[in-house]
């Protein structure tokens, strides 16, 4: 069962073509890592999938349901607002800069959407939040405000917050890029656990270690296009695309 399928999606910002004809699908339980140089359209592609950016052209299917189809920016499908948010709720998003709600504690951050969107009630939401925060290793931080947490802890709260809505797929937008090096490991550990538990994941990342170890497939994007797709064992040992080879070289030189 394909959770995500995009057909030739394009995203143009005024004159800049950030994403060009990207067709990609993610199967249930699959972990797909999207890598590539900065400015290659990885994040924009990810943001198109959950509606934070509106595509200019192409089709997006979530659970094989056509969710967005546009030609030259004009919508070709009409979906009710309610159905649209129902479909979008199948995706959970983790941001580069965490975007925790600073006026809420860790637990309240996780509870907010279950209480107000799913209407599951304060008690059930609190139990859910405590369970998820414990799973990401923050059992002792329930009542801390985000400002009192390290970047790695904040990102783990953000992961718990997204999981609380029980998404079918988790989208990660460079989840470790804003973290101090020594905090990256904690977040990656949580993501690897999540992958092992069978969660479907689409991860835009610069962490080649994660892509190599945890991903089933690696997608290399360059200049808004998909340059190469393959299993990590092949991609990392013998990239075919010349730009991918160049990219790997520049990373190894760091």
């Amino acid at each position, binding site marked *: 069962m394909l959770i995500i399928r995009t057909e030739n999606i394009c995203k143009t910002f005024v004159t800049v073509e950030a994403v060009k004809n990207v067709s990609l699908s993610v199967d249930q339980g699959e972990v797909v890592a999207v890598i590539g140089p900065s400015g290659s359209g990885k994040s924009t592609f990810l943001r198109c999938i959950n509606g934070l950016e509106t595509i200019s052209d192409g089709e997006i299917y979530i659970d094989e349901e056509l969710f967005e189809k546009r030609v030259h920016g004009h919508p070709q499908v009409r979906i009710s607002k309610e159905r649209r*948010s129902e479909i979008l*709720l199948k995706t959970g998003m983790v*941001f580069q800069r965490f975007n925790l709600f600073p006026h809420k504690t860790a637990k309240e951050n996780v509870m907010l959407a279950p209480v107000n969107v799913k209407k599951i009630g304060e008690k059930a939401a609190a139990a859910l939040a405590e369970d998820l925060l414990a799973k990401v290793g923050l059992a002792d931080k329930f009542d801390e405000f985000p400002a009192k947490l390290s970047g790695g802890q904040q990102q783990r709260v953000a992961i718990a917050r997204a999981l609380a809505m029980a998404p079918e797929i988790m989208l990660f937008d460079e989840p470790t890029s804003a973290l101090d090096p020594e905090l990256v490991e904690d977040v990656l550990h949580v993501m690897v656990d999540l992958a092992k538990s069978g969660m479907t994941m689409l991860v835009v990342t610069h962490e080649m270690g994660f892509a190599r170890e945890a991903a089933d497939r690696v997608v290399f994007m360059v200049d808004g296009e998909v340059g190469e797709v393959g299993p990590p064992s092949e991609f990392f040992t013998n990239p075919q695309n010349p730009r991918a080879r160049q990219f790997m070289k520049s990373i190894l030189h760091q």
Partner: protein
Amino acid sequence: MDSLHQIANWMPALVHATGTTLALTATSVVTALALGIVLALAKISGNSWINKPATAYVFFFRGTPLLIQLFFIYFGLPQIFPELNISSRFLAAYIAFSLNIAAYLAEIIRAAIQSIDKGQMEAARSLGMGYGQAMRLVVIPQSYRRMIPPVCNEFIMVLKDTALVSIIALNDLTFQTKMIASNKASALVYVPALAIYLVLTAIFTIIFNNLEKKFSVYE
């Protein structure tokens, strides 16, 4: 000692008039806050049927003198529409002040809301919240702390601007002071009047400082 005695004699009348000043300030600021939030949200709206009228409202009420707005509501409206005869001076002043302050507060509130990081709205939307829900639960609560200092400023300005109502003979602190000054032919009354305004300003500054601290707990 004689002047102290005089001032003590005037105090009941002055304190009574201070009640009018305070009541007018408080009622019009509260009304203006409600109206200001609506105007601010309208101005942020992408729909030009909603944001254009709000922008025009702010343009008009910020762009014309409060005193003339007050004259217009108290003297002008009854002439144009006899059925709109606002006989109560307080009511006329309350309407003029509320409408006027709302324009200023709308800009303060709009700026505070728009200063909240865009990622907050994105995170809320990605969790399934609608625009209104995201505004109400995530964005607006964070903007409170940022609007408190300028709202405090506005509040203190209003407190002193209410002196304008003495011109339509509403018995506020300034009107009462003027009455005593001319009836008793004594300029001494200005001293307690100034002191009362100063004390009120000090009290409100303290209240707003505490509010700011209260809304900053999470930072």
